[in-house]
Structures are given as structure tokens and as C-alpha cells.
């Protein structure tokens, strides 16, 4: 007995059970949670259309709306930063398209480029201010949230004397590239492909490229990462730009699909995106998280929002249930992470 323990195995090559290894992944909680939420609603509201093709399509559509933003937000949070201006970027970029097409008669493709360009610029400003002032990104982007929303309302009213610009449908239908953002396959809008595609790209970047390691490094310990030669400032600024650009992409998809834009579009999206990333297993403090998890976070959000509808629960209760889900997800993820770090020690 004693001889067997005489030479302990080096902890770095210690065999770890499959279960523990799985629990070490940040997205596992989100996957199990999403499956569980689906089962609950499938049993509860399966006969009301929750599991039907059309029902699945609306769930995926709702998930895609937040998911398009959430994978970039997850990377940014892993790098240790917040972006609260996401929702305002959706509103501002949407009005660029709506006013550009509706008031100035610009071609749709040009306004799309302008909207994405606006997103990149706002992201750069966010990142530059955060890096240069070393202020918490929470405050910097909160300021940007208010500035952008106010500018959007003010400029829109000044130009159009309205707060909602519609009637874009003819121009959109005539545009050669609008279909990239508005196509539908049966009940399934192309936004779902954008969502999954962006999440896969984000996952590849995070797990298979040096840039991904830098993201983890920048969020885990920025000082240590900088000492190791990681360009922390550049990484963070690029992630701010990616986040705002993905918000602009969402705005483009929304405005082109609906044929109108209004100044309040995208409100609360910043919180939905953060909720999605957190349910997906990303830590608020940075250094740990997953873009795949954000897919399942978005799915959970979509299933909860639409599932309650299928189950016949009045929409009044949605926010309360979302809050409970968020707390549960954080508690469970926290527990998993502690287990994961324990297996390594």
C-alpha cells in the first residue's frame, strides 16, 4: 500500500477523468443548461408548437438577434472589458441605413458600408479612450451609450422631423446585396447563419490562433501578458471594434429585414449580450470564457423568451425568469470554474 504512493505522479501529466475534463470547459454549463431549458419547454409546451419547425425557427431567430453581438461581446469580456454601448450602436447604425436610403436616396450597399464603418469607428474610440485613460470600460462605454443614443435621436429629428424612418422596402428589394442580410429559407432568416458563422469564427480565433491566446492573456493578467510581449492595447482596441461592428451588422440586418429604422432600436441589447455571454460561461472579471458557450447562451435566451409564449405565460413574467436564469447560470458556472481550477492544482 505505502509503496504505491511512494512516487506521486507529476501533476502535469496526471490522468484526469473525462467528466472532470468536460467540466473544465467553460461552455459545458451553458450546453447542459440549454438542453435542460429545451426539455422543460418541450414537455410543457411541445403540443403548443414549441418543438415544431416554425417554433424552432422563431427561437433561432430571436437567438440570432442577440447571438450576432454576443460572440464578440464574449471575446471582449474574456479580454477583461465591457461594452455597454452595443445597443446604442444598433440604433445609430440602423439610422445611418434608414436615413441614408430613405432621406438621401443613397444605394443600400453604400449605407451598409457606412453603418459598419461607423461601428468600427465607435469601437476604436471606445477602445482608445479605455486604453489611454485607464478608466474602467464600464464607465467609458456607459458614456458612449448615452452620447450615441442622444445623438441618434437629435440628428434623426433634426433631419427628418420624425423618430422613425420607414418605407425603405422598394429600395431594399431593388438592391443587389440586401439579400445577404434579408434572405429567408422557409421560416429561417439568414440572420441565423450570420450568428452561427460569427460564433464559429470567434471560437476559431480564440482557440486556434495566437490572437486567441492574447485575448485570454489580456483578460487574465494584463500586466503579465504585456511583460510576455502581448500587445494588450491593440488586442483590446480590436475587440472593441469587432464588438461595435457586430452591433452595426445586427442593425443592418434589422433595418433591411423590417424596412424601417427608429431611434430607440437596440435598447437593452447591451445587457442581453452580456447576459448571453455570462450564461455561456464567460466570467465578468475576464480571462475565462467561450464563444461556443455564447451560442448556447443565446439559444437559452431565445428558448426562454419564446418558450414562455408557447407555454401561454404572459410576457410580463419574462424579465423575472430571465433574471433567475442569469443568477442560476452564474452560480453554476462559478461552481464549475472552481472545480476546474481545483483539478489542476
Amino acid at each position, binding site marked *: 500500500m505505502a509503496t504505491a504512493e511512494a512516487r506521486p505522479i507529476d501533476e502535469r501529466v496526471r490522468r484526469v477523468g473525462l*467528466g472532470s475534463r468536460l*467540466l473544465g470547459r467553460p461552455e459545458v454549463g451553458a450546453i*447542459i*443548461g440549454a438542453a*435542460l*431549458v429545451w426539455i*422543460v*419547454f418541450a414537455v*410543457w*409546451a411541445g403540443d*403548443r*408548437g*414549441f418543438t*415544431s419547425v*416554425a*417554433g424552432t*425557427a*422563431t427561437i433561432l*431567430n*430571436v437567438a440570432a*438577434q442577440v447571438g450576432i453581438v454576443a460572440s464578440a461581446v464574449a471575446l471582449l469580456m474574456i479580454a477583461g472589458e465591457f461594452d455597454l454601448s452595443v445597443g446604442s450602436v444598433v440604433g445609430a447604425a440602423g439610422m445611418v441605413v434608414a436615413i441614408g436610403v430613405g432621406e438621401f436616396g443613397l444605394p443600400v450597399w453604400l449605407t451598409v458600408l457606412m453603418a459598419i464603418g461607423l461601428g468600427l469607428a465607435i469601437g476604436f474610440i471606445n477602445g482608445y479612450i479605455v486604453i489611454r485613460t485607464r478608466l474602467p470600460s464600464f464607465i467609458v462605454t456607459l458614456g458612449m451609450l448615452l452620447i450615441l443614443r442622444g445623438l441618434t435621436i437629435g440628428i434623426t429629428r433634426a433631419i427628418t*422631423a*420624425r423618430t*422613425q424612418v*420607414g*418605407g*425603405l*422596402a422598394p429600395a431594399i428589394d431593388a438592391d443587389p446585396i440586401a439579400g445577404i442580410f434579408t434572405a429567408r429559407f422557409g*421560416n429561417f432568416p439568414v440572420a441565423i447563419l450570420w450568428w452561427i458563422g460569427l460564433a464559429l469564427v470567434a471560437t476559431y480565433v480564440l482557440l486556434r490562433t495566437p490572437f486567441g491566446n492574447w485575448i485570454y492573456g489580456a483578460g487574465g493578467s494584463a500586466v503579465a501578458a504585456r511583460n510576455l510581449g502581448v500587445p494588450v492595447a491593440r488586442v483590446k482596441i480590436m475587440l472593441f471594434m469587432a464588438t461595435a461592428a457586430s452591433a452595426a451588422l445586427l442593425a443592418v440586418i*434589422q433595418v433591411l*429585414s*423590417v*424596412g*424601417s429604422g*427608429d431611434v*430607440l*432600436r437596440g*435598447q*437593452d441589447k447591451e445587457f442581453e449580450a452580456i447576459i448571453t455571454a455570462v450564461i455561456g460561461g464567460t466570467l465578468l472579471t475576464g480571462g475565462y470564457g467561450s464563444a461556443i458557450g455564447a451560442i448556447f447562451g443565446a439559444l437559452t435566451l431565445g428558448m426562454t423568451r*419564446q418558450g*414562455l*409564449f*408557447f*407555454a*401561454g*405565460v*404572459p*410576457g*410580463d*413574467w*419574462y*424579465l423575472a*425568469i430571465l433574471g*433567475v*436564469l442569469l443568477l*442560476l447560470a452564474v*452560480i*453554476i458556472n462559478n*461552481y464549475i470554474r472552481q*472545480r476546474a481550477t481545483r483539478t489542476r492544482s
Partner: protein
Amino acid sequence: MKTPRWAAGLVALGLILAACGAQQATSTGGADGDGESAERDMRIVVVTHGQASDPFWSVVVNGVNQARDDLGIEVEYNAPQGDDFDVVAMAQLIDTAVASEPDGLVISNPDPSGLEAAIQGALDAGIPVLSINSGSDVYADLGLLTHIGQTEFEAGVGAGERMAAAGVTNTLCVNQEVGNVALDLRCQGFAEGLGGIPSRVVAVDLSDATGAQAGIQAELAGDPTIDGILTLGPTGAAPALLALEGNDAVQLATFDLSPEVLTAIDEGRMLFAIDQQQYLQGYLGVSVMALYVQYGLLPGGGDIIRTGPGFVTPDNAAQVIELSSEGIR
């Protein structure tokens, strides 16, 4: 050792969701009371653009719920969450409603171009749809059963007729939201209803009450023969009331209700207010749909069912104040 803690979390989630389900089951308890089984099986979904904080829509919901209880059917009400009008979220709710295969769908239609695809999806799925509150100009083209609401022009005509009966000779129509087509229609109807008595449209700024008050006072000073003013909403009525303080020669009336408007009518400082009686929009929306689903009955062959104008005058203002505290006006 990991499973028990896990299971606890999962069970908690299940319990929470189940609890919400139980809550819902009791809140639609009226369904189990009486009525034929055919009625019990019916399920109608209502999707509007009403904001949670808007007292107007609470009244609509109260009408919906009363119809649900009276008819003993299953009715679900939904509107986009949050405090802004979000046509994207509303279209998704309609898509979801369609996927849940209700027997009938009642919607409001504030942005026809944004909701067109979702509405078409419902019709393609063979679900009867009617609109309430907004969308009176497009419901027929979309192929909806009917529209239940106030038509602005006709309501304006009603206001003009009442104003003429009060003996006015020269009037103003105060528009606080220039560019809103519905408000233009109200002024046009007003002019029609006055039947030849002159009426001039005055534009004021919704967000600048002091400026609006000054503007109305300037109009009155410039043309002392004006003895009737119609404002198109409480945000126009409030500055008009201030502008007319101590001036009994001018009759004032307004569209839509607010506590200030009701008090002013009760005290005799205003002639009347036009109420679109949105409780009826909720109640009739559900009832008309239920009758159509069950028996194929449709009033007036699908013409607009008008819930307004209802007039609040000094005679009934006290009753309206009481009903508005109960969420019916």
C-alpha cells in the same frame, strides 16, 4: 460528488418554470368554470405594441382579460418587453404566435411595412387575423378580417359637430405633432364636422409647453373672434388650458384623456374630450375573433368597427374619473 449540486440547480430551474406554469393555469381559471367544451378548446393570441408603462394599454389588456373571462376561452396577451416600441420584437412575437397555432390572432398594426411579412405568415398558415387600435388604413389590403379602433377623420367630424352645436363661430385646430398623418386627419375631420365654420390649423411643439402656450395666446390676440379650440392630445390641451386661464369666451375640447383633461372637464373649463374607448378594442377584439372562429360570424362584413369617438363631457366626467381609476377608461 458533482451530481447532487448539479441536480439541485436543475431541479430549481424546473420548479421555477413549473411554478410559473401553475401561476398561469390559475390566471386563466375562468376557462374551467362554465361554457361548452367547444369554447374551452379555443385559443386566441393577442399581440400589440403596447408598452408596459403606458396606462393606455393597461386598459386594453383589461378589456382582453374581461372578454377572456366572460367567454371562458383561452386568451394570451403579449407585447414586446421594455419601454420602447420595437417592431422587430413585435414581428418575432407574431411569428411565435403563428408557430403556436392559435385559433385566431388579434394584433395592433403600428408599422405596416415592418409587420407585413409576419402578418402574411399568419394568413398563409390559415390563421384568421384582425387588427385593433392602429392599422385602419391597411387592414383590408392585408386581408385581415376587420379593424377595431377609432378612425381619426370620423372622430374629428364628431368633434366638429359638437363644437358647432356649442355655437362657436371661428376655431383653431392645435396640432402638437406635425407630420403625424393621423393628426392631420383629425383636423380635416374637424373642419368637415364644423360645416362651414372657419377652422385654422396651428402647429405647436409637443416638447415645449411654454412655447405652445405662448403660440396659442398669440393666435388669440391676433384674432379675437376665435371662440373654439380643438387640441389633438393632452400634450396640446395642457398648454391650451394655461393659455385660456381667466378667458371664458373660448370653448376648448381635446382628443384623448389625461388626469388634467378629466379634471378640467369636471370643473367645466373644457367642453369635452374625445375618448377612443380602448377598453372596447381589447374586449371586442377578442369577442369578435371568438365569434368568428366558432360560428364564422363577422359584424358588418368586415367593415371597420369603431370604438370611438366616445365623448367625455361635464355630465359624465365624474364617472369616467372613477372608471379610469379602475382601468376601464
